[in-house]
């Protein structure tokens, strides 16, 4: 039974990897005041680009670069529409998801139904993997990107909260007018964060098609992009909290398969969303109205002199 806990943790780590990468990206995007509902679209474009390039070159890491580039390019589209042209960010994000799902399917026709020749192999973390009981189960065979996601969360947390760069991003998201007045290039920063978010979603998609399930299938992200969006919010826009949130989401997902004789799996899979609402409510009640850390200017395109 003790093993069961560690097994759940190990699977939660693996399953939460794509969620974490994509959510970290979205956290940075939303911290700068932009909402991108196109995570699912960017993720799946990353998945097909990664797969196609890895299959062609034989190197999954080159594939990962392609996945990042594809995610970033897709995000650039959103940046142009939602930030530069100040179109509606929600429609732009939704359009990006629809477009991404369609385009990836179209490109993917040539790649469907074939396994990846050289997939990313899981690794054993030296030292930690030889711990008794926990070691082999938790540290024995995870992907590099799983540990990479945790590291990325730490780095982003430091950047966001303890560097000038982070302060700039947060200011742009909290009060773009003030940032502008202070001489910060608001739009340029937002474009960069949106593209960064796309690159991170690309990593998430690449992980799926290169490591988690090394093959291409149409619609293989299967809603994970939307979960990542929920996750960014559930984590209250904090990269470190995102790690725990991702693990919790991952645990619920895997438990839906190990506890299903005791509990309806649909209701277990529903929990993360319910928890997100509860987390927001609880934080608001505890800290007072609206004080749960949502970037003040979230979702509002910025133009000087407008509100």
């Amino acid at each position: 039974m003790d093993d069961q806990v560690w097994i759940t943790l190990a699977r939660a780590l693996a399953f939460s990897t794509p969620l974490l990468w994509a959510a970290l990206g979205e956290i940075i995007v939303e911290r700068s005041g932009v909402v991108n509902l196109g995570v699912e679209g960017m993720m799946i474009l990353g998945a097909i680009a990664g797969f196609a390039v890895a299959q062609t070159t034989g190197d999954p890491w080159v594939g990962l670069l392609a996945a990042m580039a594809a995610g970033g390019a897709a995000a650039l589209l959103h940046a142009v529409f939602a930030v530069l042209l100040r179109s509606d960010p929600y429609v732009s994000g939704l359009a990006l998801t629809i477009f991404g799902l369609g385009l990836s399917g179209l490109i993917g026709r040539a790649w469907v139904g074939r396994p990846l020749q050289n997939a990313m192999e899981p690794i054993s973390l030296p030292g930690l993997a030889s711990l008794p009981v926990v070691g082999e189960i938790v540290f024995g065979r995870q992907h590099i990107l799983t540990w990479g996601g945790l590291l990325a969360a730490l780095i982003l947390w430091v950047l966001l909260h303890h560097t000038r760069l982070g302060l700039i991003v947060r200011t742009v998201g909290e009060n773009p007018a003030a940032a502008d007045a202070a001489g910060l290039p608001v739009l340029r920063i937002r474009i960069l964060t949106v593209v960064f978010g796309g690159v991170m979603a690309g990593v998430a998609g690449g992980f799926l098609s290169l490591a988690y399930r090394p093959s291409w299938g149409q619609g293989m992200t299967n809603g994970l992009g939307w979960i990542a969006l929920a996750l960014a919010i559930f984590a209250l826009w904090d990269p470190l909290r995102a790690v725990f949130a991702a693990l919790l989401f991952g645990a619920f997902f895997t438990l839906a398969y190990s506890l299903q004789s005791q509990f309806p799996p649909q209701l277990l899979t529903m929990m993360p969303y319910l928890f997100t609402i509860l987390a927001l409510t609880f934080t608001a009640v505890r800290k007072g109205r609206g004080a749960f850390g949502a970037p003040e200017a979230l979702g509002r395109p910025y133009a000087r002199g407008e509100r």
Partner: protein
Amino acid sequence: MRRLFIALLFLASLPFASAQDDPLKVAFIYVSPAGDYGFSYAHELARQKVDAHFGDAIETVFVEAVPEPDVEPTIDQLVADGADVILGTSFGYGDGILAAAPRYPDVIFGWGTGYQRAPNVFTYMADLYQPYYLNGMIAAGLSETGQLGYVAAFPISEVKRHINAFTLGAREVNPDATVDVRWLFNWFDPAGTKEATEAMIAEGVDVIAFTEDTPTAIQTAAEYDVPSFSHYASMVEFSPETVASGHLVNWEVIYIDFLQKVLDGTYTSDNLSDVDYFWLLEDDAVELGSEPGVKIADAFVEPLQNTMVDHPELGSISVYDLVMDRHDKMVAGRDVYDPFLGPVVDRNGNEVYEAGYLPTIGDLTSLEWAAPGVVGAWDNEPQ
């Protein structure tokens, strides 16, 4: 090629262009993209074989990724394009097909895996329970722990029947074998399949079977060197070393038989009310194999030949020979050998079929009980 196709379409729509030797136009409707592995892919392979078999006598088209509620407008469009026979391959198309059929009394409809017919609607099914039974035998022969795993899509009769057959097969080889079942409540769910497979392997399962529309279970099991089975079509490419055998479906056998009878004039749009295909190993509509023609993958033949069991009826026999014995008898006919021939009890000890009773197709398609050895949640189980 497509240009030609469009030109043909255009010609077909011209009045007076329809000469007497017009090919029979047969349209297939798939619920998912045709190229992906899984249910629709199996039908697409069959369509290509139908095309090759009939040559100029039949022209086939397909529409892929049609959501269940959209089948009716899809039928309208296909009829407008001149389809003579429309084959809806998914259970969920039933409402739409039965609603559209009276509107187009001259068009012949097929409802794959369906149960309700009409003068111009027939039903058909190529059922895999017999190959699943043989897969269960192979699984038990390969397992060290006696714990087998099954990733299952939905708790419908068809899937329950397959799990039961798999479990009964395993128990013929190893009376103590158990089959752990995890439900996805989804036909297409790679992430769910991955996690369900991982969870079972972590709990000691060392052979995996599944009903889901991707090769994910095979790929996941391969990471742990756990044997698995091709589902619908050959999935050997996804893990050449670990796919031991499988259950393959040859929908074209049914399609060719039916369409030949349409061409002959045996079947018309007003005599289909009793036409129901439920075809099995004996009809060659399904097949045991990791890939067509390979019943058991080479690497697994020897281990199975070296594993001996004490069989109550056949004495000391290798698992390999036992599988082949059961296989050949089922190919000879349901009356020669059937895994569900009574006496059969369920896992709660109730007698399901009394001694000597051979369940009818109707019994099998409404099956709800769980075989002894099945472990896990079971919807709507008789107590």
